[in-house]
């Protein structure tokens, strides 16, 4: 029980105190303690990445093995991994080789197109979210419309009133929205996030938050 539960909590507490105090000690030895964590943390993380690689291989292997629904596509995933590795071994990782060719002509276009697909789904989500059912929802709609118009040339072109009232063209209003009310909201959210992160850190160090130990004894 001590080995499996109390000892990890004790390690967390001691490490939390050591690296928490380290910040307040301006001394080369203190800096060394900090770099000790960054070096070790990186190596631990690198070895822990094996967990991710094994998990995804196992997931797709099991789908193929049990002929789960759409298992044929898992064959594509499982085949692509060694192809990339073999390409890197045979042609290196510099541009001009098969490895970077696969990256530039397979990975990059698919990822960019997947992200661009979100434009359509965001638009359909906007239709549902932007129906101005209240004054506050209307504020959201107006702010989004102004920012969108402010980011394209047509925004400046339709701002016919900006000659009479300088500084009120759509791009300028969009810039004001981003820099004033938007920044105020973001800053308050960041403050809340910062305070929340501190509380979570304290809870981990003090052993109140212990979900990382898992559910077993």
């Amino acid at each position, binding site marked *: 029980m001590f080995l499996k539960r109390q000892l990890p909590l004790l390690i967390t507490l001691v490490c939390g105190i050591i690296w928490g105090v380290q910040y307040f000690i301006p001394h080369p030895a203190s800096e060394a303690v900090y770099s000790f964590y960054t070096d070790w943390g990186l190596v631990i993380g690198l070895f822990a990445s094996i967990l991710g690689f094994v998990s995804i291989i196992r997931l797709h292997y099991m789908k193929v093995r049990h002929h789960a629904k759409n298992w044929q596509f898992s064959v594509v995933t499982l085949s692509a*991994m060694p192809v990339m590795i073999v390409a890197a071994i045979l042609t290196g990782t510099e541009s001009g080789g098969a490895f970077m060719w696969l990256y530039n002509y397979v*990975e990059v276009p698919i990822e960019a197109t997947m992200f661009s697909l979100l434009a359509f789904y965001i638009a359909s989500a906007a239709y549902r979210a932007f129906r101005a059912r209240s004054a506050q929802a209307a504020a959201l709609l107006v702010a989004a419309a102004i920012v*969108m118009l402010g980011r394209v040339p047509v925004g400046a072109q339709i701002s016919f009133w900006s000659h009479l009232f300088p500084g009120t063209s759509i791009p300028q209003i969009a810039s004001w929205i981003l820099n004033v009310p938007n920044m105020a909201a973001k800053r308050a959210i960041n403050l809340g996030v910062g305070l929340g992160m501190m509380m979570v850190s304290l809870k981990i160090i003090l052993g109140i938050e212990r979900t990382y130990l898992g559910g077993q004894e």
Partner: protein
Amino acid sequence: MHLSPSIGVWVAVFLTLCVLSFLYKDNPFYKFAEHLVVGVSVGYGMVLWYTQGILPKFITPFFKEGKYIYIVPAILGIMITMQLVRKYAWLARFPMAFLLGASSGIGLPRTMQAGVIKQLEATMVPMGFSRLQYIWNIVIFVGVLSVLIYFFFSKEHKGVFGGIANIGIWYLMIGFGATFGYTVMARLSLFIGRVLFIIQTALGIQVAG
């Protein structure tokens, strides 16, 4: 019109169209592209893991520079992978305890500095009515305060407190709207980039402007 002679460009066009076909409905072409990109990116990650991670950060220091102490984080890292073996999954708790304890300790004062004090510093700037920027500083200060009050749920949002919280909602709505608009434009520019890739790079049709 001048069709691209590059096979890579046409492979990219085919895969781009496979992904865009999802706009009609989920189909085997999309599934193929989806699974392919997972495999390729994992393979890419594995190669980078070795060439830019484990090789310079562990193999070189340990085997070539004689820094044998690196065996300790390596063992700790391997202990994390023990989660794959149910019987020894508890071994992962020690490296996790080290990582979480140290990162929480490191994060605590730094978050206080960057996430709280810096934000407060940026809010408490000169305010007044003599300059336009000073007026906007008031608007920002009122916004930060009212949004913080809105997120304070330990007191019921009634009376003056509720009124200030209501102002906070207005700020949040404008902020969310602005973020939404910004995101939509970023996604649209990505989409325009893909369309231009097909039209200009693959088909060789030059678009004016």
